[in-house]
C-alpha cells in the first residue's frame, strides 16, 4: 500500500474513532462517577444526546462580545484537539500495526504535542475574554494560571523522555512518539530509574485532570463559584464544539500517558503474534488492549480523582503545581538521569 494512503486511513479512522470514543468516554466517566457517589447516573449514550441537542439549540452571541473571536475560539479548540489526538494516535497505531517506514519515523513530536495541548486551552481563554462577561473573564484568568502552572512538570517529563530515548535508541529521533512507543521507557532501567518513572507517572496523575479541566482543577469552570466561568456565555453549537473538543482532548491526554508510560502491546507481553483459528488477530487485540489501558487510566485519573477531592482555590493550584508537582517530576527526571551511573557502579 502507498504510504500516503496508509496515513490518510489512519488519520480518518482516528478522527472518527476519537469522536466516538471521546463521547463514549464522557458517558462512561459520568457513569463511574455516579457509581462512586452511589447514584444511578445518566445513560452511557448521554454524551451523544447532549451533543445532538446542543446542535439543535439556539446559539446566542452576547451583544458586547468580540464576535469573531467568540465564534472562532470553539472551532480552533475543536480542530487543535482533533490534531492532538491524531498526532498522538497515528504514530502509536503505526507502531501497533508494525508498519515501518522512514517517512513516519519523525511523526508525533513531543514538543508539538505540548503546544497542541496548549492551544485548545488558549482558545478557551480567548473565547472567555471575548465574551465580555465578568464571570468568564475570571474564568479565563484562572484557566491561564492553570495552563502556566502545568507547563513546567509537563516540559520536565518530556525532556526526561527525550534524554532516555536518546540512550535507548540512539539511531531514532529522540523527541518522537514513535520512538517512545517502540522503546518502552521502563527498558534498561535500574531501581532508581524505575522510581523516577513512577514519580513522573504520578505527576501525570494530576496533570491529566488539570489539562482536561476536571475537579480538583476545574477552577476555570467552577460551577458554584463563577457559574461555568469561561463557558458562561456559550450556548448552542459553540458549546457543543467546546464539549467535543474537551472530549477529544481528554482522550488525547490519556492516550499520551498510555503511549508514554505503558506502550507495551499484547504481542510484546505475550511474546509473539496472536493467532486464533488460522487468522492473525494481533491488530484487533492490540487495539482492544490499548482501549483497556486508556479506560483504566481515564477512570483513575479523571473519574476517581474528581470524586474524591474538593475543588482547590486557584492560589492553591498554582502552588501545588509549581512546588509539589514540579518537585516530584524534577526528582523523577534527576533519578532517570543518574540511573545509568548507579547501574555502572
Amino acid at each position, binding site marked *: 500500500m502507498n504510504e500516503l494512503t496508509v496515513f490518510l486511513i489512519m488519520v480518518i479512522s482516528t478522527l472518527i474513532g476519537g469522536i466516538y470514543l471521546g463521547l463514549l468516554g464522557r458517558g462512561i466517566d459520568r457513569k463511574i462517577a455516579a457509581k462512586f457517589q*452511589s447514584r444511578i447516573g445518566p445513560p452511557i449514550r448521554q454524551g451523544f444526546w447532549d451533543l445532538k441537542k446542543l446542535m439543535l439549540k439556539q446559539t446566542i452571541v452576547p451583544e458586547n462580545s468580540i464576535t469573531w473571536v467568540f465564534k472562532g475560539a470553539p472551532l480552533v479548540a475543536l480542530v487543535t484537539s482533533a490534531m492532538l489526538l491524531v498526532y498522538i494516535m497515528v504514530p502509536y497505531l503505526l507502531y501497533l500495526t508494525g508498519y515501518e517506514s522512514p517517512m513516519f519515523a519523525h511523526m508525533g513530536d513531543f514538543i508539538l504535542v505540548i503546544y497542541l495541548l496548549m492551544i485548545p486551552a488558549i482558545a478557551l481563554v480567548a473565547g472567555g475574554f471575548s465574551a465580555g462577561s*465578568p464571570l468568564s473573564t475570571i474564568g479565563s*484568568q484562572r484557566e491561564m494560571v492553570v495552563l502556566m502552572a502545568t507547563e513546567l512538570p509537563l516540559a520536565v517529563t518530556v525532556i526526561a523522555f527525550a534524554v532516555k530515548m536518546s540512550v535507548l535508541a540512539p539511531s531514532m529521533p529522540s523527541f518522537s512518539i514513535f520512538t517512545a512507543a517502540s522503546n518502552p521507557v521502563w527498558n534498561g532501567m535500574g531501581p532508581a530509574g524505575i522510581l523516577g518513572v513512577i514519580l513522573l507517572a504520578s505527576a501525570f496523575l494530576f496533570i491529566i485532570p488539570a489539562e482536561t479541566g476536571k475537579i480538583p482543577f476545574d477552577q476555570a469552570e467552577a460551577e*458554584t463559584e463563577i*457559574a461555568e466561568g469561561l463557558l458562561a456565555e456559550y450556548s448552542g453549537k459553540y458549546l457543543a464544539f467546546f464539549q467535543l473538543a474537551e472530549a477529544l482532548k481528554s482522550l488525547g491526554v490519556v492516550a499520551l500517558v498510555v503511549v508514554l508510560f505503558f506502550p507495551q502491546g499484547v504481542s510484546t507481553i505475550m511474546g509473539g503474534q496472536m493467532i486464533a483459528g488460522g487468522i492473525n488477530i494481533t491488530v484487533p487485540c492490540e487495539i482492544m488492549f490499548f482501549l483497556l489501558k486508556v479506560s483504566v487510566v481515564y477512570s483513575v485519573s479523571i473519574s476517581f480523582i474528581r470524586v474524591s477531592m*474538593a475543588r482547590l482555590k*486557584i492560589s*492553591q493550584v498554582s502552588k501545588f503545581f509549581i512546588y509539589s508537582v514540579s518537585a516530584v517530576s524534577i526528582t523523577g527526571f534527576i533519578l532517570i538521569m543518574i540511573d545509568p551511573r548507579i547501574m555502572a557502579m
Partner: protein
Amino acid sequence: MSNKETYKLQIGPTHPAFKEPVRFEFEVDGEHVLHADIDMGYTHRGIEHVSKERNFIQIIYLLERICGICSTSHPMAYCLAVENAAEIEVPARAKYIRTIVGELERLHSHLLWAGVAAHEVGFDTLFYTTWDIREKVMDCLEVISGNRVNYAMLTIGGVRRDIIGEVAEAVNKTVEYYSDLYSQLEDIMLNDMSLRLRTENVGILTYDEALKLCAVGPTARASGLAKDVRADYAVNAYPDIPWLKAITPNDVGKKPVGDIYDRIVVRVLEIKQSVDIIRFCMENMPGGEIVAEPKAVKVINQLKKVKAHGIGRYEGPRGEVSHYDILDNNECPVGVKVKAPTYSNIISWVPMFRGAEIADIPIIMSSIDPCIACSDRASFVEGEGKKTVSFGELRKLSMEKMNKIRRGL
C-alpha cells in the same frame, strides 16, 4: 497597589451556589474581595401579615412553611409564645416528644448543610454521601409524623402524635444507626485534606466580632461564644439533661478561630450531641398525656378569651429563633413577629468576606447556613424597590406600626 483598578462583581439573586435568592455586590481586585454589600428582600411573602388573618391553629401550618428545613423550629417558637401568653401548661411527655422531633430536625439540617457546603467547594461525593446518610433521619421523621419535611407535629399545648410502639422502635434504630456511623462521618468531615485546604483560615469571624454583631447558633459557637438557647433558657426537655451545654471547638481541644472549619467542627459535634439527646429522651420519657387540649376548636375558643402577649425562644439548627405574639380577645393574633436566626447572622458575612478570594465566596456564604426565606420579613413596595432607611426612620416606622397594632387596626 493604590492605582490598581478594582471592579464590581455582582453575584445573585440567582446563582448556582445560592439555594435562595440574595444579591451580593463585591468589589474585587483580581481574585481578592475588598468589600461586600448584601441586598436582600427577594423572597418576602408577607407571612406575618397573612398570620393576622388566620386563627391560632391555622398559623402553625403557615409558619411551618416559612422554611422547609426549620419546619419544627418556627412552629415550636410560635407555640411556646402562645403558651407563654395564655399560660397553657404543656404535659411532660409532650415536652420530650417535642425535644425528640426538634433534635431529629437538627440532625437532618446539619447533614443537609454538610452536603450543601461540600457542593459549594466542588466535593460532590461528600454531598451525595451526607444526603444519603440524611435519608435515614428523614425516614424516621416520616414514621413519626407522616411526612418527610413538614412534620405538623406541634400544636398549641402539646404534640399531635405519640412516640410509642413501632414508632419508638424506629427512633431507637435511627439513634443506633447514627451512633455507629458517627466516627466515620467525623473522620470524613474533619480530616479530609482537600476539605481542610478549602475551609481552614477562611471566612474568619473573631470572638469580639461575633459578640458585637450578635451572631447566633453554630456561627457564634464556632467563634468561641458559648451561646445556646437549649442550655441557657428552660424550654422543652432540655433542663432535664444534666450534661447539656453549648458546643464550641474547645470540646475537641481546639482553640476557636472562627473560621469555616470551626463551623464544621461545631456542626459535626452537634450531630453527636443531638443523637445523645434523643437517646436520653427515649430512655427517660415520662408517661401521660401528649397534649393539654386535644380538640383544636376548643383551643381556639380558649385563646379567644386571652388578652396578653408572649414570647417564645427556641434554638433552631441555625441558631436562636424567637417569636413574639400579641393575643387580643380575638380568634386571630393581632401581631406576629418572627425573628429567624439568619437575620442575626447576615451582618456577620461582612467581616467574613474581608480578604477572601472569589473562590471562597460560596463556601463563606453557605457557612452560616443561611435561610433567606426565614429572614426576609420586610420589603419596600413603593418607589424603585431599593431604599436606604436610617435608624431613626426605622424606629419611627416601627413605633407607628406598634401603635397601629395597639389600636387594633
